[in-house]
């Protein structure tokens, strides 16, 4: 276990000053995520344009540094992506968090991958994996128009 790996500067930064925090006008999709075990909450807002591209994305929520940083980094890099691309990135991110050493996709720039990889430290902290994946499951649910709130217990 290595705390420095878990709490990298980039995570502390995004955790403390999350980007894209707060609801925006005219979103056309949203989904809530909740971790009943710890009380972490995220509400994701999404605007898909007529071509199904992510026009805007933001979130509201309360949670630990890991869950806030994850939502912050995710919303940053989803802007401009198509629905299909977004789903692909979600899958590759979840692969990386669960088992893979890398994020295997050419949809992201190297620096974006590096940012996401900084969340990989949770692999050594199984109880914290849900913190890192909460907002991603919420995004997945919003894209699928799945009305039920997601939980990550």
């Amino acid at each position: 276990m290595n705390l420095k790996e878990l709490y990298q500067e980039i995570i502390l930064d995004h955790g403390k000053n999350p980007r894209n925090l707060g609801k925006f006008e005219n979103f056309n999709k949203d989904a809530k995520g909740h971790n009943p075990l710890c009380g972490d909450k995220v509400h994701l807002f999404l605007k898909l344009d007529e071509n199904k591209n992510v026009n805007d994305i933001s979130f509201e929520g309360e949670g630990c540094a890991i869950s806030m940083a994850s939502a912050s980094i995710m919303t940053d890099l989803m802007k401009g992506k198509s629905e299909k691309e977004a789903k692909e990135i979600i899958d590759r991110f979840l692969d990386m968090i669960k088992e893979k050493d890398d994020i295997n996709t050419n949809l992201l720039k190297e620096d974006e991958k590096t940012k996401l990889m900084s969340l990989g430290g949770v692999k050594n902290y199984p109880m914290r994996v849900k913190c890192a994946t909460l907002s991603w499951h919420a995004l997945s649910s919003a894209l699928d128009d799945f009305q039920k709130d997601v939980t990550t217990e």
Partner: protein
Amino acid sequence: MKIENIKKEFPIFNNKIENNDLVYLDSANSSQKPLVVVDRIYDFYTKEFSNIGRSVHYLAVAATNLYENTRTAVQKYINAKDKNEIVFTKGATEAINLVASTFGQKYLKEGDEIIITELEHHSNYVPWHYLRKNKGIKINFAEIDEHGDISLESVEKQITSKTKMIALTHLSNVTGAILPIKEITELAHSKGIPVLVDGCQSAPHMKMDMQDLNCDFYAISCHKMYGPTGLGILYAKKKWLDDLPPYQGGGGMINEVKKNDISYGELPNKFEAGTMATAQVIAFNESINFLNKIGIDNLINHENDLLNYGEEVLRKNNSVKLIGNPKKKGAVLSFTIDGIHPHDIATILDEDGVAIRAGHHCCQILHDKLGLTASARASLGVYNTRDDLDKLNESINNCKKIFNK
């Protein structure tokens, strides 16, 4: 048994946690087990095992006697009038469910009211919620004051002519508040209302005297009392156990079974259907022996000293905010740190071998009221020392360093 050397009785402290000595501050969640209790389970399974209450062979009779010995030991420990007032359950949760279900079935109808408090653990709320859904009863909450305390008056305020039960905790697992149960019971009884007490947090730390408290029901969790998991105790006045219908049906709880009717067994069998947690019950006798050897007064003095010391140390730490400042407090130090989420605190503390709990501690109503989504909680057991609390404080300082606070 010297309390200063008590850690030696608990084999878990011989192990390193990631190269650190274990600083176990999660006893409100579950306590560690002394070797005598672990050994008793091993001995029972290796030398004495049999099911109880059914067969007439040697082992069955001996095991039945051992099982009943624990019932008598519990009766004495909590000063109940009658040994048949002790019912073994799979946990305190089941004990409360048993009462909510059977009392609800017999005595509650639409529009009836019960009172709980904002301090309650989910296990003393959800079972009553079922009755709200199924029978249309109303649940009223006695409100906490600014210190996280519940007074006699705050309970009294909720009493109406429709109140049929008051169910409340003896010791809050978050604010540590010790409630004036005796006074509340006296008030409730003067209005003909029975009282159920969730004693999960109080039983390991306070002197138990059912006849003095005079409450109708008292739920105890054995795994928080240096005993095995999978075991709880429902204390109930005999008049209630005679009066209420059985909770679960099955073997052991019946008198006569015919195709057209069934009659139920006598106490305590009436509420102990099926094969019970026999080894756990028998081993729990050793937990009570262990507590008796320490002596409840010594235990209370030791834990009060730790609580006061812990509060003093954490109060001096500027970033730490303690939750709750009740008049009478036991065994729990809940806190937050500005700008660091309790889960991050718990993960960082864990790296130093300091085991605490973070989250809502099964008390979402209370956390909503306090305006918190989560808190960090260090809770005490008989094996803790001042040194443990110093290590907690050092580790909190390490958190602050990592988060640049």
